[in-house]
């Protein structure tokens, strides 16, 4: 029951972030929405690891978090002009 409500709330969060990602006026809005989507996806992977009781999904979440962080920092530094 509570886990189902959590899944619904995280799905709405993904929906709003994707709307900002599609709509955002500047590139930095899209970058911020992509960063938020990476964090939300990490949390969703952890919740799915608890739901299906597969501990391997935690490793997937950790690797996804590392790659999302590296991608966001690299794109931000590139847009700043000093990579």
């Amino acid at each position, binding site marked *: 029951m*509570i*886990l189902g*409500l*959590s*899944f619904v*709330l*995280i799905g*709405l*969060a*993904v*929906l*709003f*972030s994707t*709307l*900002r990602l599609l709509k955002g006026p*500047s590139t*930095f*809005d899209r*970058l*911020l*929405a992509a*960063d*938020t989507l990476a*964090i*939300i996806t*990490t*949390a969703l992977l*952890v*919740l799915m*690891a*608890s739901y299906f*009781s597969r*501990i391997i999904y*935690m*490793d997937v*979440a*950790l690797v996804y*978090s*590392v790659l999302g*962080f590296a991608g*966001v*920092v690299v794109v*931000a*530094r590139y*847009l*700043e*002009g000093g990579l």
Partner: protein
Amino acid sequence: MVVVGKILVLIGSIFLFLGSLGIFRMPDVYNRLQAGTKATTLGALSLILGVGFMNGSFLVKSIVLIIFIVLTNPISSSTIARASHKAGIPLVKESVVDVCKDNVRKEEA
């Protein structure tokens, strides 16, 4: 312990939803950073800790993931804020003070 974990998971998902709603509703890229990054960090942290409480074999990897998120998430948000200020994204009309305005002018001159 399971009940505490479920309550933490619910609180974390509520914070994730509110942070994402703030990203959708706020008028400015800096306001969106303020709303999106902090609330999302707290939400992910609470949700992962709740999952670690719900089944004990997940607890060690949950703590590793929490430490990683706490270390890296402020770095990425601060990098985005600095890049957008250097690229000249204007502040919203109602904002009162811009502390870093002189730095940009000094670097351009």
